[in-house]
């Protein structure tokens, strides 16, 4: 038997994974190889050292800390859902408030009656008009890309700031309770 094979068998023996035949082979090798015998004794010493080390007990506060963190996370989640709902609600209300005004504008300019009374031709013309508006907007966007990006960033920053204020307010209210 080679020494590297004997070394693997030593590990298997420590894990009680060596059958009788291989155990006998290992012992036979150890009886004739001083280097492997020395390694086996070192491995046994190591095994004894590790096996004698007890399980380390968890601190008593661990459960309370875990549950407190879970509770905090749950509060934050509720605050985020609350603020998102608030923002969506506000946007919906704004759209609903603007809808009659938009319809009045379309009526005043004659677009709404034309849409209602006109046939497919009106629809085609309207689509052509929308296409023209779209192209104009694209040209404008090319020119105004940088200012628009800045404006969007400002909008995002404002939304984020409002969101943080809302989350902070909810946290303070929860903590006060």
């Amino acid at each position, binding site marked *: 038997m080679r020494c590297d094979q004997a070394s693997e068998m030593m590990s298997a023996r420590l894990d009680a994974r060596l059958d009788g035949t291989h155990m006998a082979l290992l012992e036979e090798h150890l009886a004739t190889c001083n280097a492997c015998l020395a390694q086996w004794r070192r491995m046994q010493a190591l095994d004894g*050292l590790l096996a004698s080390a007890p399980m380390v007990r968890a601190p008593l506060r661990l459960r309370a800390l875990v549950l407190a*963190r879970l509770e905090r996370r749950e509060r934050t989640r509720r605050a985020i859902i609350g603020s998102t709902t608030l923002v969506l609600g506000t946007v919906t209300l704004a759209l609903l408030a603007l809808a009659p005004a938009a319809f009045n504008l379309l009526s005043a300019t004659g677009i709404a009656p034309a849409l209602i009374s006109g046939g497919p031709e009106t629809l085609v013309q309207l689509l052509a008009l929308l296409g023209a508006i779209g192209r104009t907007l694209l040209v404008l966007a090319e020119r105004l890309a940088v200012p628009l990006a800045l404006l969007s960033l400002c909008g995002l920053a404002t939304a984020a700031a409002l969101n943080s204020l809302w989350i902070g307010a909810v946290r303070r209210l929860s903590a006060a309770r």
Partner: protein
Amino acid sequence: MTDETEEIRMAQAGDQSAFGHLVTAYQTPVYNLAYRMLGNAAEAEEAAQEAFLRAYTSLRSYDPQRPFRSWLLSITSHYCIDRLRRRRLTWLSLDDEESVEPKRLASDCPDPETVVAQKEREARIQQLLATLSPTDRATVTLRYWYDCSYEEIAETLHLTVSAVKSRLHRARCALAETVEGEMNYAL
């Protein structure tokens, strides 16, 4: 249905109190694994908390056919392995060890000499473990402190059984080289 299965089901439904019972039942195995992996009490406490939070978040994906302990230890060991890989310095100094001494489950013996001997042995074990790679460290810890079979270690660490066998052998050879003295064990 066992109490634990029921608690797991309730925790999956969002019952934090049921999850609290699971934390109580498994806090020592989880904490001990984190301590053996990371080498100090403060980090182990933080890691154990994080492992439980991750377990709570992933509870819906838990397969009840699998032992809960094995699933939980898998989350803990992977978290600790990631943490160790992020860490530049893995060596635990004796001073650090003494500053945050954890409690042992075995004897609460007040004998000062025994306490000193236990502390020295503990420090030595942690120094030995710190010389191993994170995955080898997890393999050795699961083998010695949890009495896991090769198959259980393989499942916990997402390795093959032969990889577990060779990692254990390699780790033992490396550790045995550094172990001095204590040659009184008979063949």
